[in-house]
């Protein structure tokens, strides 16, 4: 057991009756404790697997790349949401100068394909989210026009239809020169319509507006791509890898990550998680998101115990064996599904590729 050397901010419970009513989950905690817990919750660790994926991803998002649809998959709890946040921040910084120079440009939008149980209106919801992100003016006053046989006519009622909304979104993406559109929880798109319809829609949106679509979601996203050669030609799949117990380098990296999280531990009494990093790796299936959930739950229990650590907290916070098995099976099936389709897994195996490289380096030019 180690102890934080930082000054302990012990606050006496206030008896002020005018103080706002506290939420039940923070009852018994000092404001300092709540603040520390929130800080721990917001801690993002940029780990090597994420960095590798970002390094692969950024060139694909450049305007000169022909990849229009990029799919980022990963196991549940692998850290996809954190990756999305980091990516958006990074892209925003890249586009900052462009946005500063031209106040009409919106180069980046990010939406979530939420499922509300109603298939028919899901695309509408997605389009409306995109219009919100595009700061589209007068959305209640839209009157899409159609040009047929050299005749222009206004179709005011079509603003409520999926086709009318799509045309409005296309115009917005084109005119605002949106380069990248991120759709989080993109596996929900599978519930909107058939796979081919979803991908044709995204392909058309990309063709008409020049926007690259980044779909972030579970392994099911692979099903969206695989039956459509047209889409596959301009698509790439990237996987956010988890850490493996049988790889020594992964074990070391995982230990580093635990060390970083431990440094942000919200209580003064800090348990030595680094010592049991292999066990934590196994418990969290090598997924950083799952590890974080485990530690968050354990820290909350410690805080409610007036900051006193009890090893039982760790046991309680870890997923039950049955649930962990469900997650493990799902991850393994998903990884098997996408393994041969991932970005960088070309037709050459390592031996063949080494020969190719040797030939390139030793042959004379011309």
């Amino acid at each position, binding site marked *: 057991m180690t102890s934080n050397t930082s000054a302990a901010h012990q606050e006496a419970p206030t008896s002020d009756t005018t103080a706002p009513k506290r939420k039940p989950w923070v009852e018994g905690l000092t404001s300092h404790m709540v603040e520390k817990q929130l800080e721990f919750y917001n801690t993002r660790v940029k780990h090597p697997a994420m960095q590798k994926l970002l390094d692969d991803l950024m060139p694909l998002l450049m305007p000169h790349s022909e990849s229009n649809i990029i799919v980022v998959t990963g196991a549940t709890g692998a850290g996809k949401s954190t990756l999305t946040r980091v990516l958006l921040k990074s892209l925003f910084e890249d586009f900052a100068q462009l946005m500063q120079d031209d106040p009409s440009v919106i180069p980046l939008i990010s939406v979530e394909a939420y499922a509300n149980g109603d298939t028919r209106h899901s695309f509408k919801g997605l389009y409306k989210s995109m219009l919100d992100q595009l700061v589209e003016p*007068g959305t209640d006053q839209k009157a899409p026009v159609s040009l047929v046989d050299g*005749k222009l*006519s206004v179709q005011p009622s079509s603003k409520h239809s999926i086709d009318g909304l799509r045309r409005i979104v296309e115009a917005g993406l084109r005119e605002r020169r949106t380069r990248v559109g991120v759709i989080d929880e993109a596996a929900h798109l599978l519930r909107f319509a058939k796979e081919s319809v979803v991908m044709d829609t995204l392909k058309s949106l990309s063709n008409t507006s020049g926007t690259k679509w980044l779909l972030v979601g579970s392994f099911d996203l692979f099903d969206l791509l695989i039956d459509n050669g047209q889409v596959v030609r301009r698509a790439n799949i990237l996987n956010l890898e988890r850490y493996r117990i049988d790889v020594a380098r992964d074990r070391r990296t995982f230990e580093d990550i635990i060390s970083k999280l431990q440094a942000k531990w919200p209580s003064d009494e800090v348990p030595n998680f680094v010592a049991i990093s292999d066990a934590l790796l196994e418990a969290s299936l090598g997924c950083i998101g799952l590890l974080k959930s485990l530690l968050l739950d354990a820290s909350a229990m410690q805080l409610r115990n007036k900051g006193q650590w009890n090893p039982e907290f760790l046991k309680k916070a870890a997923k039950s064996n049955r649930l962990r098995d469900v997650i493990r099976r799902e991850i393994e099936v998903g990884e098997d599904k996408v393994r041969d389709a991932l970005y960088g897994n070309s037709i050459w195996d390592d031996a063949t590729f080494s020969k190719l490289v040797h030939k390139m380096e030793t042959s004379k030019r011309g």
Partner: protein
Amino acid sequence: MAKRTLFYPQPLLGQDTGDAQSLRSYIERLALSHNMKPRGLLDTLLKEHPLEDLSADLHQLQKRWAVHGFAEVGAQLQSRLEAATGSSLAGATLMRYKGLFASVNLTRANDPVYCPCCVTESEGAELPYGRLLWEVQCVEACPVHRVKLRSAKLCGAQPEERLPANQRPSLSGVCIQCGSVGFKCLAKEPLPATGDEIWVASQVRRLLDLPIERVARCSAESLRTGLTELVKCVYGGSVVRASQQAGLSRASVYTWVAGEILAGLPGLLQICFHAKADVCALIDGVYRSLDSSPAEKSPPRRLQVVERTYNRSELNDDQIRELLEAAATEAEPPSLMQFARRHGLNVDVPRQRFVREAAVLAAANAQHMQLVYERRYVEAVHAYTAAVQALLRQGLSVHAKSIQKQSGVVAFSQNHPRVRALQEVLSKHRLETGEEKGGRLKAA
């Protein structure tokens, strides 16, 4: 980070050229690209960027589009749109000429026109756009295609092909009634413009082509200097001669030269046409002869840029008296108004200066009109009586509407002999059949 613009950054088409897009066309195209109607776009714009001290009636604004002249609403709308799009719209109105020309008779209102050739040339990916040039009231022709401008209210489509009111597009170069891009609904060939019309349009186009910075350097004073020089060089310094020969009122030319009021663009073009002067040089304060003027080949003449309700008559009093006496003896003597129009006179000239002759003509005209009305009455009675008999034969009800429909002769209030005839025939019919007004039979 700078705030995002409200609308897409649409550039003004033809910026800094004589073919610059008008503000109306810009708003219409901006609305189209946002999948909105102009009304909705303006509504959204003014919510975000309200006009100062102006209660903008959007309905009236869109009906008249009086935004291209010197009205404050046009200037404010332009600046709000610039803020909302980030695009420069300085060339979309005539505001840069404020303080140089008078605002009267400057721009068209509620009567949009277009060049039938320009709107068909913009085919393909680009839809046609409206020029600021077409918004200038004295421009009647396209200087590029040398054809007359056409009213945008005309549609050549069959009634069943026309769009319902809520589906009609609002875009310059597109027929509002049937939606035809480039007005292809009108099959007839464009009318060739006269040389005078082309000259006027070319000069206005040259004015619009001037860089905004150069126009900003010009002032009412420089224009006055130019006009003074023009009068001096061409008319020997005589304002009277200048006004008479150019067909303008003396008061107008005098007040322009004296700097009392600003010159109107139509009047200025009229005097420039007669004097073969370059209007672009004139606003700089310099008189320069324009070699390419069509008037160069023909002797100086009048150009009717300024619309008048009457022409200047060159008749003397004796001639007018003789004409009045001759008119009174014609088979169909004209009214005093018709006589005045025929000879380019104000109606008060014969009425006040030739009282006796005018009275004789008026009496002759009244007698003639009495005969005309009587003849019309007899003809109408004959037609309505025949119609009543035909209706009775067919077993149809007889009333005012059916009689007019059967006879094909409409009795409208201005044609009182027909109204009188219809009442006469209906009364007679009711008397004969014992029917009351409204189709009920009288009690026995």
